[in-house]
């Protein structure tokens, strides 16, 4: 059963170009120049229900644009998308009841409210009854260990506490698919680990499909079995993390890079993290050279 199906998806943006200085500004009024940028270029993939997928790539590769098309925020120029069997562009609001989103760089909580009030608010937004919302709040606040700060205004919480609350907001309506866009950005290693555990738990217990983008290799290695790497709007690799680590032809080169790091990496006692990171960097670099 496929939770997400994408076929030949494309999105082009038209951006303005302006020459420098006053002359350029005046010229742009009478002869505006634009340039087309292919943010996503013929991407095809599918995600089975219950899978945790890493969708990664360098900055500007088209990851967030793809997420925005999957959630119905952006309209594709070409191709087809189905999430949970519906077209996000045609049934965006109906689909919103079935998906959750966490954008690590964008807060969706109302900062003057307490987490508890925020959860009640989002429960109403998702048409849950008050009783259902309270039951779900109890369940999630237990799981995400929010009891100590659930009644403190969000503006007074630490980043780690806020991200946990963001996760609860995204899960309040029991979504079938969870989109996580850099959920651990800016968090300390302990909180990161905590968030990863919670994501795994949600996936295990509620069978939630998770679509993850992250620049943190730790997120990918500890959460995902499958990885899709995009660059320049195209998929350059779609493989299992295990297979990538053991069979990628550049592994040897990556190992050399790792050895060059000397005792620092060895001393960390976590060679496997560095190895995947080096492989990913190698892939990014090799794509950049083509």
């Amino acid at each position, binding site marked *: 059963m496929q939770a997400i199906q994408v076929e030949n998806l494309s999105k082009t943006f038209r951006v303005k170009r302006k020459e420098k200085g006053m002359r350029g500004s005046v010229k742009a009024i009478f002869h505006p120049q634009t340039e087309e940028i292919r943010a996503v270029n013929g991407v095809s993939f599918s995600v089975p229900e219950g899978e945790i997928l890493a969708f990664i790539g360098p900055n500007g590769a088209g990851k967030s644009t793809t997420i925005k098309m999957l959630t119905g925020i952006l309209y594709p120029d070409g191709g087809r998308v189905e999430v949970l069997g519906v077209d996000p562009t045609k049934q965006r609001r109906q689909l919103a009841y079935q998906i959750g989103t966490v954008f690590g760089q964008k807060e969706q909580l109302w900062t003057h409210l307490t987490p508890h009030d925020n959860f009640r608010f989002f429960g109403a*937004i998702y048409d*849950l009854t008050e009783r259902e919302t309270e039951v779900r709040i109890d369940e999630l606040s237990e799981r995400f260990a929010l009891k100590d700060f659930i009644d403190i205004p969000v503006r007074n919480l630490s980043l780690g506490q806020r991200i946990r609350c963001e996760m609860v907001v995204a899960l309040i309506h029991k979504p079938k698919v969870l989109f996580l866009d850099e959920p651990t950005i800016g968090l300390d290693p302990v909180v990161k680990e905590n968030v990863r555990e919670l994501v795994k738990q949600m996936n295990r217990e509620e069978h939630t499909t998770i679509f993850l983008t992250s620049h943190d290799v730790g997120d990918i290695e500890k959460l995902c079995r499958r990885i899709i790497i995009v660059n320049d709007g195209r998929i350059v690799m779609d493989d299992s993390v295990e297979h990538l680590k053991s069979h990628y032809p550049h592994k040897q080169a990556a190992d050399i890079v790792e050895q060059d790091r000397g005792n620092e990496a060895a001393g960390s006692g976590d060679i496997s993290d560095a190895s995947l990171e080096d492989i990913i960097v190698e892939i990014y670099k090799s794509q950049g050279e083509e």
Partner: protein
Amino acid sequence: MYGWGKRNAAGALSLARGRGGRVKGMPWRKYAVIYRLVLLENLQYAANIVVGFFSYAVFIYTFIMLWEYMYRTPGELIAGYTKEQMIWYVMMTEMIWFGSGAASVAREVSTDIRGGNIAYLMNKPYHYTLYVLAKYTGEWSVRLPMYAMLAAGIGTLMVGPLPGFPLTAVPGMAVCVVLGLTINAVFKMCISLFSFWIEDAAPFQWLYDKLLLIVGTMFPVEIFPKALQPLFKLTPIYTVFYGPAKLIVDFSPEKCVEILAAQAVYLAAGCGLMFLIYGKGVKKLYVNGG
């Protein structure tokens, strides 16, 4: 099972029912919750509104002096208005202008579209425009009554109560004022929604505001040349300012019904236009990736 073209089977069913039992037949509940939250937030900052009283008082004092000078003889009529009626008319329109704070609605929509924040608001199961309207209603629900009390106080002290004004007219007038504010917000949102196509809708907002301010609030429509008056009555001036303010100086149930009917037509047309522009514009949305 999900798959291409299978949404009418399991997909559609699960979208309709969701995972938990959802509140059916109460689509406005979520907007009421948004309204309540913003209202509570604004109540905390009610003291800040008092600062704006100074501008209103100066404005009204200037107009009282102007009309004191213009009306040289007692009982004189200008454009069919006595001095007291003219001053109460201006106080009413300025109360609506200051109390509505409609600039915030325009600013919010423009900023959301240009800054890309709209992407994070669109993926929730509510209509973005109604979400903004609900928030705005929560804002003016605190501000407008405060300005109404100020206007009543200044008017009674400096001009005296209007002879022949029935207190029973207050509920009808209040409904007209509320509808007028909503119509104004809808039209300002329509202008801001053009930010989907143009870089900055502010110049159009400026033109609209100045038209309303000069023609709608400072003088009654009857002051202007007869040839222009029917034209002004076709603009939002009639439903937003002139209509509700006219009721305070010349109330009759028939006039109240006439204004309410015009407002209903305007609101329906304005909302239709707003949904149309939003529906078209959202397909043009360009949001930078991450």
